[in-house]
């Protein structure tokens, strides 16, 4: 072991700096015990660093007593410091989470509102579609009705108002071929509760009434056109107001309209 050379390598300076590996540190510690020159050199290097670092000192250090006071009091000091910093942080944390919760609740509310709006709109949609369908079928019925009335076999009989209700009127469209009569009752007032209009086929001499049927659901029927069967050789048509369910023979007191079939 060449001690001189070892010292000259500069490794002992690094040893004092504390930047060598553990193996190197251990090796030098052993050499220092073995070779007094190395031990002496180490101390001299350390002394130079001690001198240099001492010059950079702030100059007045805390007394050892104040250091020991802190060491003995440290257990008390640290919790106070921690307590001081914790509340602010936890307040901020709680505030943030509260804000988040409020925000989430608000978004949830908004979402629910939108959902219910969508439901309302959807229901309106369904209603509108239903209306369109109703209108379509009503239009079809009207077309059908119009076609029926335009049939060339139809004879039109105007029924004029009678003593009970002079302003009333009605029309009968009679298709003799298929024995059907359509009564257009738009000119009749709504029957009172418990009463119904009844249509009669009349033979004039002698006067023989035959019931053709009732104008049921008068109030709710939109176009007030009613289809009835008429197998009779009618000479006139009359409409009377009868108690609900109709009568065997007409109550001529309550004859609203009457019309005679033109003979051709």
């Amino acid at each position, binding site marked *: 072991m060449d001690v001189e050379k070892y010292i000259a390598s500069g490794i002992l300076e*690094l040893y004092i*700096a*504390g*930047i060598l590996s553990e193996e190197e540190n251990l090796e030098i510690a052993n050499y220092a015990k073995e070779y007094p020159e190395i031990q002496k050199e180490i101390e001299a290097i*350390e002394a*130079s660093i001690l001198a240099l*670092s001492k010059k950079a*000192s702030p100059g007045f250090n805390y007394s050892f007593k104040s*250091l020991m006071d802190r*060491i003995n009091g440290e257990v008390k000091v640290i919790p106070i410091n921690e307590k001081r910093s914790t509340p602010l942080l936890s307040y901020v944390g709680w505030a943030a989470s509260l804000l988040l919760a409020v925000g989430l609740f608000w978004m949830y509310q908004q979402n629910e509102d939108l959902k219910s709006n969508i439901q309302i709109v959807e229901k309106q949609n369904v209603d509108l579609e239903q209306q369109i369908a109703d209108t379509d079928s009503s239009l079809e019925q009207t077309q059908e009705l119009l076609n029926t009335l335009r049939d060339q076999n139809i004879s039109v009989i105007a029924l004029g108002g009678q003593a009970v209700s002079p302003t009333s009127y009605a029309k009968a469209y009679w298709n003799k071929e298929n024995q059907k009569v359509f009564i257009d009752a738009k000119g009749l007032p709504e029957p009172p509760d418990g009463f119904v209009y009844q249509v009669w086929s009349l033979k004039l001499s002698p006067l023989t009434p035959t019931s053709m049927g009732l104008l049921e659901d008068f109030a709710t029927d939109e176009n007030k056109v009613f289809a009835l069967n008429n197998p009779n050789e009618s000479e006139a048509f009359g409409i009377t107001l009868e108690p609900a369910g109709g009568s065997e023979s007409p109550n001529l007191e309550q004859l609203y309209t009457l019309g005679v079939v033109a003979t051709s």
Partner: protein
Amino acid sequence: MQLDLLVDQFKKKDPTAFEKLYGMYSDNICGVINTIVKNDALAQEICQDVFIKIWNNCESYNSSKGRFFTWILNIARNAAIDEIRSRSYKNDKKNLSADYFVGILQNKEEEESSTVDTKGLRNLVKNLKEKCVQIIELLYFRGYTQKDAAEELDIPIGTVKTRNRSCISQLRDNMAVR
């Protein structure tokens, strides 16, 4: 060796031994910290924290790992470097290299009330070349490895050891002259 005995006592949590070690090294440790934080009051605060840490961890020192001073030097510079990092000081190496411990000299001359022994420090480093100041700062006060110091100074890694040796020799000469 008296120092070894003292350290043994200290490891047994003997306050008297600790007081003696504090008397021996507190100026040096506070000085090392001051070269890093460059703030007297802050350096003293950290310095006290470091000695508390040393006391609380006294069992972990083992003489086979190095000198006692080297052990506390390491604790001190780690604490100081942690401090400036946590205070988000600009810590990139360029800034550091522009401001070595001799910077303390200039600072201290400006504030006359300072208690730093500027005259002594000035005498101690008077013949030291810039590259010596740099390498001593990096290795002793910053704890750079040889590799890191070689990169920082842009010199071959083998040069670090020899240059440092000659710089320390010069420092020792300056001490002897004084």
